[in-house]
């Protein structure tokens, strides 16, 4: 009888040691992919587009995004937690939430650039009027042309639990949207307009035009004129 019990205990201890060994092995050698190099694969050119975009301003930003997800605890896990929470003096403020969900955090640092300017492919023939030595040019509205947050600009600082690539990408898209809004709030479009007018004015002046008028489609405050004439050459 005792021999059987002893054998059972030895067996149980062996199983426990094996499980612990696997866990330790996975913890130490399971990941370690920082030094991994990606395999050499071809880069395929899918499309070549002719564009005419004038980039006039760039906004640099760095955001720290903190997100979390509450994962439904499994019944078995809840049972274990219930045993902990029912101990006297445990002091969990919101017992039901503690029992129901497990919280996983993800903190990312996103460094990005927001580019704004003009898409000249929107220009129509009527936007450029020339008479002798005078030119009138109507600018299209300034816009955010690109928000660049590349993988090398994106640092995952804390990642608890399992987060899919899609979830990480979604967070990156949120960062891009926020950066774009912040850039607009900082006045990137107004700056774009000022730079574009200055640039085109000097370009037309160098081409020999004497009267230069550059109009803007940018919505200004009501007390400002929509058409912003550039200074006329004397």
């Amino acid at each position, binding site marked *: 009888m005792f021999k059987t019990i002893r054998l059972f205990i030895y067996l149980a201890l062996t199983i426990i040691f094996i499980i612990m060994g696997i866990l330790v092995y996975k913890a130490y050698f399971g*990941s370690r992919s920082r030094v991994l190099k990606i395999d050499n694969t071809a*880069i395929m050119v*899918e499309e070549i587009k002719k564009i005419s975009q004038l980039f006039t301003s760039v906004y640099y930003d760095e955001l*720290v995004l903190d997100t*979390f997800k509450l994962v*439904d605890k*499994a019944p078995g896990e809840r049972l274990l937690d219930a045993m902990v929470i029912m101990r006297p003096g445990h002091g969990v403020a919101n017992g039901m939430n503690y029992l129901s969900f497990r919280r996983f955090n993800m903190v990312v640092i996103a460094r990005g650039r927001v580019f704004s300017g003009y898409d000249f492919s929107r220009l129509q023939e009527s936007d450029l009027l020339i008479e002798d030595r005078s030119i009138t040019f109507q600018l299209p509205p300034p816009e955010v042309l690109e928000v660049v947050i*590349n993988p090398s600009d994106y640092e995952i600082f804390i990642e608890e639990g399992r987060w899919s690539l899609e979830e990480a990408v979604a967070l990156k898209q949120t960062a891009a949207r926020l950066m774009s809004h912040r850039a607009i709030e900082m006045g990137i479009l107004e700056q774009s307009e000022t730079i574009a007018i200055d*640039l085109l004015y000097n370009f037309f002046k160098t081409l020999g035009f004497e009267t230069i008028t550059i109009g803007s489609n940018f919505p200004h405050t009501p007390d400002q004129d929509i058409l912003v004439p550039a200074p006329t050459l004397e």
Partner: protein
Amino acid sequence: MHYRPLQITRFRFTVLMSFFLLSFSFCSYFEKEKEPISVIHRLQDMSEMATVEFVVSKVVKVNDVPGWYKYGDRKLLISCKARIKAGINMREIGEDDIVISANSIELRIPHARVITLIMDPESIKEEYSKTDFFRSSFTNEDRYAFLAQAEKEIKESIPQMGVLPQANAHAVAFFESWLRAMGFEHVHVIIKPLESDNLQP
């Protein structure tokens, strides 16, 4: 009063343990984002005319073959796309670069350079992932480290893709059409020789 001691038979124990272990896998979740903290921000001028956009694709292939102390494979395939915009710096066109005589004009424009390289988040997709029992799954930190390597490879292969010659050709076409629209009959647009290594964005 007689209490019957609680007897856990092997069958009950097996059923309970199975339920206990299986129940861990039935999970659902919701997530919430907090207000972001902006660390730095800066606004800067630029004057670049982008004349070409290349869309390129790459498959990120990772094969984590175990060493002597590891057991089990890890494999990952991620597909992604990048957009490269190139063009010329308008501020580098000075008065000396424009020569006008009657209805003829000669314009010298700077050599094209890469303006932006962006890996579209929408195009990043995990196509395949396999992790053996003795290994841990790839984290997003791992995945982004692999994507950063892919980004570097795309950046390094820009000279071989012919982005800049295309950008130069489109810039010449763009200025020729503009100058003709401005009334010049004879238009000659020349690319200035490349002065420095400014190919990277």
